[in-house]
């Protein structure tokens, strides 16, 4: 109930406000003329088509890579340390603000790029356009896809595989029955998430899109170009919302493929060196390709002036860290990230409980699903502009609270899916059993369900934390002089062409996220010991 009010207020209201804007003509009456003029632009249809194409390609690629990485983590006998490295490496792109992606690609693959120079010749194909976008988008979306896929994979019963083998299924049939089929819902979910992330991002096409026009850059031009036109921008944003309806239906349909298990058992995997080697090679190739783009970010800040004056220098670090504002900005960033994470985890968990583990009417669950998909389809910039319309003049304007609310809404979709996937993998009869034993639904949730999804809860917390650290597109419109955060500072520096400082701050965000990630991972594994256990342990050490 509270959740509904929250979303109506902070998602519904801004969206409706925008919708009105897109239908109002210059005289203030209701009209379709804005939409007409948008569709009359010849390039608009083409941009829309381009967007669909490139977002689908990138999402497909990201989902496949994510599957390979997750599979390597859960279905091979590789050393645990190696798996942990994969897990971490797959998430690394998420730790950097997306503003840096464009630079990273140009500084890597461009004429003077690090990779171009290392290899000694330029790319055999054009960087600007499809290739640049494909690289940018897939690297950007792999972490999310990996999170979703691996999150579900840990709840798949591996004994099914053994049963399938015992029954005499062929290898590919086993693969299908025991792994792909139970994952189908999640794989599609991951694809859709990746698709919309690419569909709505405008930072990457702005730097490497070339002549390949996509709908997100049309939106940017209309909303904030040289001649801003909020009405047209709103119309474009509304058109961009349409695909989310299709995806809601698709996800509903795929619901039936989700399989529940009574118990998740960790069966020993059979020894198979060929399998292990092949999957690990695939993973390593994928990760190396993905991460090589970011090497330049770790090199450039230590150089006097990349790529023209290449000598070691710490001056950029000094200039950034002697800035007196940095401490308060960093404090703001941490505060925003922690609070967004706490609020976001609560919201995602609550919503996922409604859809996955309650007996609420079907339409109710549909509404929650719808909200989740819509949050994913609204570009951050549109959310930011809509918030400006609705909340300027109120006491929320320029406050930390509004930034947190904005983040919770903006990133709601993936955490919600993660929570829902984990919750729906748990045995369905728990509530009934607990009910029979006299526990209320709430009690069951707190005492039984929550401890069982602790790891997912922490990864959701981490997801929100990280994204709040790196986000800029929406909050750039909402920060005030007392609520500046690191990414808005980066945006300022970028505007002033101080790229080396941009990279330094990106590294600061990167390492903050790395430490936070380690912390959250540790907390996820932390199990409070009972007194008897402690005694037992003491006895052991004494012996």
């Amino acid at each position, binding site marked *: 109930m509270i959740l509904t009010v929250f979303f109506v207020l902070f998602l519904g209201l801004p969206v409706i406000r925008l919708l009105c804007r897109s239908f109002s003509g210059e005289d203030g009456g209701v009209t379709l003329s804005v939409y007409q003029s948008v569709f009359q632009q010849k390039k608009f249809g083409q941009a829309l088509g381009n967007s669909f194409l490139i977002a689908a390609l990138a999402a497909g690629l990201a989902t496949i890579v994510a599957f390979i990485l997750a599979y390597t983590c859960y279905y091979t006998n590789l050393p645990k340390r190696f798996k942990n490295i994969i897990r971490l490496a797959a998430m690394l792109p998420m730790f950097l603000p997306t503003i840096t992606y464009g630079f990273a690609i140009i500084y890597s693959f461009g004429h003077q790029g690090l990779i171009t120079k290392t290899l000694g010749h330029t790319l055999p194909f054009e960087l600007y356009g499809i290739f640049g976008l494909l690289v940018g988008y897939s690297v950007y979306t792999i972490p999310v896809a990996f999170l979703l896929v691996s999150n579900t994979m840990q709840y798949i019963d591996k004994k099914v595989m053994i049963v399938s083998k015992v029954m005499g299924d062929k290898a590919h049939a086993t693969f299908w029955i025991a792994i792909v089929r139970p994952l189908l819902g999640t794989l599609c979910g991951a694809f859709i998430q990746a698709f919309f992330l690419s569909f709505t991002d405008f930072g990457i096409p702005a730097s490497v899109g*070339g*002549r390949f026009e996509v709908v997100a850059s049309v939106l940017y031009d209309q909303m904030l*170009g040289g001649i801003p036109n909020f009405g047209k921008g709103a119309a474009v944003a509304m058109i961009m919302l349409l695909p989310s309806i299709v995806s809601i239906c698709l996800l509903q349909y795929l619901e039936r493929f989700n399989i529940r298990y009574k118990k998740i058992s960790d069966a020993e995997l059979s020894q198979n060196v060929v399998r292990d080697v092949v999957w690990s090679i695939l993973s390593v190739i994928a990760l190396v390709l993905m991460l090589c783009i970011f090497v330049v970010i770790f090199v450039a800040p230590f150089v006097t002036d990349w790529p023209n004056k290449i000598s070691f220098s710490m001056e950029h670090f000094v200039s950034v860290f002697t800035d007196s504002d940095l401490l308060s900005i960093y404090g703001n960033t941490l505060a925003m990230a922690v609070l967004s994470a706490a609020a976001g985890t609560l919201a995602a968990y609550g919503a996922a409980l409604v859809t996955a583990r309650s007996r609420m009417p079907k339409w109710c669950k549909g509404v929650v699903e719808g909200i989740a998909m819509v949050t994913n389809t609204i570009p951050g910039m549109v959310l930011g502009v809509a918030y400006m319309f609705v909340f*300027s003049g109120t006491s929320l304007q320029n406050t930390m609270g509004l930034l947190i609310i904005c983040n919770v809404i903006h990133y709601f979709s993936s955490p919600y899916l993660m929570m829902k996937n984990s919750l729906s993998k748990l045995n369905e009869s728990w509530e009934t059993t607990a009910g029979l034993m006299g526990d209320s639904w709430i009690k069951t949730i707190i005492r039984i369900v929550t401890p069982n999804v602790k790891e997912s809860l922490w990864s959701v917390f981490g997801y929100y934390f990280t994204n709040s650290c790196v986000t800029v597109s929406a909050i750039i419109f909402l920060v005030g002089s007392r*609520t500046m955060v690191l990414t808005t500072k980066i945006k*300022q520096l970028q505007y002033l062409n101080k790229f080396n400082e941009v990279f330094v701050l990106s590294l600061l965000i990167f390492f903050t996220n790395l430490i936070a990630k380690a912390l959250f991972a540790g907390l996820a594994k*932390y199990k409070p010991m009972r007194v008897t256990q402690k005694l037992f342990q003491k006895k052991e050490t004494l012996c």
Partner: protein
Amino acid sequence: MLKRRIMSMGLAVMLAATAMTGCGNSAKSGSSDSADKKVVIYSNADDEAITAMQNALDNNGYKGKYSFEGFGTSELGGKLLAEGKNIEADMVTMSTFYLDSAQKQNNMFKKLDFEVNTIDKFGDYAAPITSQEGAIILNTDLMKELKLTTPTCLKDLTKSEYKGHLSITDVKSSSTAWLLMQALISEYGEKEAQNILKQIYINAGDHIEDSGSAPLKLCRAGEVAIGFGLRHQAVADKEDGQPIDFVDPTEGNFSLTESVAVIDKGDKSNPEAMKMAQCIIENGRKELQQSYPNPLYKGESSDNKNKSKYPRPSQSRLPLNCMRSISSYLMR
């Protein structure tokens, strides 16, 4: 055990930091209602201009009494148009044409209560701080490597040898492109200008950028040999020892102005804001002119080593609707 302890300590520190900054914020916003609150200035100006304005304020007793927040032109423009008088800032410095349209739409600026003795006419709510010129930017290393001839005018940019090595900004999204357009139109007339512009667009191909600073950025990164961008940025890069040079096109260095304006917040207005605006204009122009040499006020000279070769007075400013018609022509 140790690991766990470290972790819980880490979390505790983090929460404490959060709580502290949280309190810090509320404390700040608590005191912000009192009379001595800082004047908030939103600005899209470049570093040199912000430093000059800060010096003017600091040297005249306003040190610590204001805070500057930088934004990109499009973000600040969006904020002005969408938030109107509700904007957090007490004062803004921004491209003049944006201030004009924000004033027209939201009637949000105060009439300036000090004398603004400009050469050209400005709205009574805006006092210009800088005049920014456009110029052709070159990456000297790449020019040599590709054996390109140095262009002397904008029409030269249509030459086929520059194809793929040129970057310009998009008329749809950046005001820097308007400087290019204005120069072409005034020299060749509207019809011919459109043809030339079209050819330049073809040469620029993949590098038609949204942001005014992008062509210089690409020149610096060695992605393109030639760009069209803001002159003072190129001057700064050249002085900095980058392989960057610039050419003043014979069609003229057209200019856009940025102005300061004070937000009208009714009785909530901070009276200090108007005084600071006056202080910036009266005491900041000298330093501002070092990076942006064009004279804006009566009595100013433009005798400066950074002076451009073919400065054009800004009366020849193009009206907004003309921009619109040309940009829609190019989109066809």
